[in-house]
């Protein structure tokens, strides 16, 4: 009896637990079979008692009112009663979690552990629990993690590779209103960790190092190129200098050099024969000139019938045409005549017209405005087509056309130059 009373006095809250479900179950553990426990509650001045049911070493009582305190009394064989008051919301023991699931996330190298609790479908302890996950390598030391949620993640770097692990879960009220003890451990779940991923990591690290080195070198090269080409190319393209109007005007208004040959003074053209040129006739002449060897034999006699014409090849008659610069003496430059005539077509007799010089020749001393100059016959040709040497008369060459706009009776035209425009005005 004494022992029973002492045991009753030592009875603490750890010996009792409250299972909160659809109906509250109060369990008291007593090893002594000779003890009867009763539970009483006082509501509205009514003190109602009920005996707890015994099953093995556990006493059960089902009730639904959790707002009232409970008085647990133990009756021994000696009919002595020892009571203790319990706040049922402070001795809550949740139900065991279940359905543990382990998933490996390769990209993140993490292990996702999910589990379920029966209280998720009930009303009082839903979202009021804290869960404890314990894991270890086989036969190793248990490590625990607590979480209020129904899943946690284990980092792969904290676990050994290609090793076997086991995990289990239990729950406890979070202490905001409901307090109590841990539930029983769930059944263990085993899983195996993945292989080491160093190759992937090392490969990625090498790639990163190479890319960083290339990027650094490229940046150095770009900086060097910018420094070298800044003044000459980059800056003018990006920030071109604005033209200085003063310098531009000075360049435009700059006086020509003393020995500048170009002049628009009509008097400077006094020593140049100026002939009118009929456009169509000039074109025909050019065509004749540019014809093969047969053409010149037939056409030339007509052109040079008793007349050695002073002609100037028109400026643009053929692709072979060219502008012949005229010197003060009326002598065509040798290279120009070479290009125009071609030494193979028109042979030059020795002594009269040397291969190196060409002279304007004429035949019947006809005024120059009525004559056409035919370069094809550097020396006048006889009807046979052979070049005929004729001395050059400087006077005739330098003779000024008295009437430039007069047509020759045989349609000989002269070129119109700037001086004619001056005279017309």
């Amino acid at each position, binding site marked *: 009896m004494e022992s029973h009373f002492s045991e009753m006095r030592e009875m603490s809250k750890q010996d009792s637990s409250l299972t909160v479900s*659809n*109906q509250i179950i109060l369990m008291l553990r007593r090893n002594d079979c000779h003890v009867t426990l009763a539970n009483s509650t006082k*509501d*509205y001045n*009514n003190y*109602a008692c009920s005996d707890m049911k015994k099953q093995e070493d556990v006493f059960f009582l*089902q*009730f*639904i*009112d*959790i*707002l*009232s305190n409970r008085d647990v009394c133990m009756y021994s064989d000696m009919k002595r009663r020892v009571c203790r008051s319990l706040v049922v919301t402070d001795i809550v023991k949740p139900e065991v979690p279940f359905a543990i699931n382990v998933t490996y996330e390769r990209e993140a190298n993490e292990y996702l552990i999910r589990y379920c609790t029966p209280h998720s479908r009930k*009303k*009082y302890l839903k979202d*009021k629990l804290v869960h404890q996950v314990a894991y270890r390598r086989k036969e190793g030391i248990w490590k625990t993690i607590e979480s209020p949620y129904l899943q946690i993640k284990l980092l792969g770097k904290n676990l050994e590779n290609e090793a076997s692990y086991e995990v289990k879960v239990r729950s406890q009220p979070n202490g*905001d*209103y*409901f307090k109590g003890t841990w539930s029983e451990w769930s059944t263990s779940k085993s899983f195996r960790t993945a292989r080491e991923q160093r190759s992937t990591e090392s490969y990625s690290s090498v790639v990163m190092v190479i890319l960083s080195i290339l990027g650094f070198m490229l940046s150095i090269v770009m900086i060097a190129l910018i420094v070298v080409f800044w003044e000459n190319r980059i800056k003018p393209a990006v920030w071109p200098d604005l033209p200085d109007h003063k310098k531009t005007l000075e360049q435009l208004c700059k006086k020509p050099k003393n020995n500048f040959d170009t002049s628009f003074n009509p008097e400077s053209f006094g020593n140049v024969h100026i002939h009118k040129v009929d456009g169509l006739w000039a074109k025909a002449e050019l065509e004749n000139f540019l014809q093969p060897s047969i053409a010149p034999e037939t056409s030339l006699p007509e052109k040079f019938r008793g007349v050695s014409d002073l002609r100037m090849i028109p400026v643009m008659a053929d692709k072979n045409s060219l502008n012949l610069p005229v010197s003060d003496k009326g002598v065509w430059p040798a290279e120009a005549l070479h290009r125009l005539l071609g030494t193979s077509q028109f042979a030059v007799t020795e002594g009269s017209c040397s291969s190196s010089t060409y002279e304007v020749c004429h035949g019947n001393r006809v005024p120059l405005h009525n004559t056409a100059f035919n370069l094809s016959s550097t020396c006048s040709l006889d009807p046979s087509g052979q070049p005929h040497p004729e001395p050059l008369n400087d006077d005739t060459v330098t003779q000024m056309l008295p009437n430039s706009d007069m047509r020759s009776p045989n349609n000989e035209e002269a070129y119109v130059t700037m001086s004619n425009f001056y005279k017309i005005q």
Partner: protein
Amino acid sequence: MFHAFFRSTLPVLPLLLVLSPVNASSCAMRNKTTEIRVKYENILSHDINELVNMSAVYPDRCCKSGKNKRNETIKVFFCNDTEEIESLQSMACNMLRFLNKQRISKAFRWKAAFVSCRTLKILQCKCERPKKEKVCPEVFNTEDTETGEQSKKKCYQEVCELKENISSLRSCWNKFEKIISR
């Protein structure tokens, strides 16, 4: 002089006895708002949600004037400002009278009585005469019946009144909970 003393003081005592029950509150938890709030948030709010879900099974069209053959006006409860506890007490005590209405499903009326008893217990209130809270120990000692009787969904006057009462009780608790949470 002795007669004058009694003549002047004697009427005061009956007056106090008559007036005191009017102003005295039958609820003892008036100044323990924190404890009320904690119990409501963790326990009673879940029970009220379950009761509202059971009430939603009965269609609202039953309580419109066309369906109500008796055309009786349904008693409306107000949650008066600064008198939320008294309003809740009145609603809970009124809801207890539906416990014995046979035309309402047993699970439904039992759940309504259960919520009423818990409301009175949290507020530590008693009902005015008749003392309806005496049925609460019986309610708490009865096993929680699941929603087995789903066949009785007809439109009765009692059902409409109970639905209205449940709605008023929930609204008043929400209002009171916001006030005491400040």
